[in-house]
């Protein structure tokens, strides 16, 4: 499977996750967000950028519990909660935000 923006083709797996992480760019994120019916705000981008940094550092997509804790530490305790992240990404922050960030599905994510 794949999608195309401005002549650039992005390969995805059967669940819509990008296959080649290095292909990710903001245009791809916007497309994936639209597919997930997420209206991207600065708060959304903050989480997406955080996830990309996390992946860059550790080579995995974090479990939701780990994500909330790390976000709380970095962006402030009011943002380090399941409630905040589920408001931004209603169908599961780990799953939805990782997809938009161009990361693989988190290990152990069901």
């Amino acid at each position, binding site marked *: 499977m794949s999608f195309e923006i401005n002549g650039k083709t992005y390969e995805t797996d059967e669940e819509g996750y990008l296959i080649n992480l290095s292909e990710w760019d903001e245009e791809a994120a916007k497309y994936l967000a639209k597919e997930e019916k997420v209206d991207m705000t600065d708060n959304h981008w903050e989480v997406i950028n955080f996830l990309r940094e996390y992946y860059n550092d*550790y*080579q*995995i997509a974090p479990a939701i*519990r780990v994500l909330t804790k790390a976000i709380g530490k970095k962006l402030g305790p009011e943002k380090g909660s399941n409630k905040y992240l589920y408001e931004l990404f209603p169908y599961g922050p780990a799953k939805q935000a990782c997809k938009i960030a161009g990361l693989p599905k988190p*290990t152990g994510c069901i």
Partner: protein
Amino acid sequence: MTESTGGIEVEEETAGRVKKFMFVNRKAPYGTIYALEGLEVVLISAAFDQDVSLAFVDDGVYELVKGQATKGIDVKNFSPTYRALEGYDIEKLYVDAESLKARGLTEENLIVPVEVLSNEEMADLMAAQDVVISF
């Protein structure tokens, strides 16, 4: 050790009790899938709030060596993921002293803080586990 692999049968009196799980890593990081699969199982195990520890023995100590360069063999270098374990509250990493020494390695060559144990200490620690799973 009271069970060989993850207890599927949960006895009533032990249900809900935190168990001591040790994951033993014995193989070099690349060439087989054991190291990576073992790490994935460890990450998943973190979700179950058990007492998890990791042991690195034999070639398993290579999993933690700094500066792994995998471009030439065209596989992902997953060693940075060991540094994520702390965020998963998995902080008990034990390395066998003899295995390190036999490979000309010291603690300074490893990407994460570990506790180096003698054979005897490692054996005692394994004996104290509820479950030991080897990769």
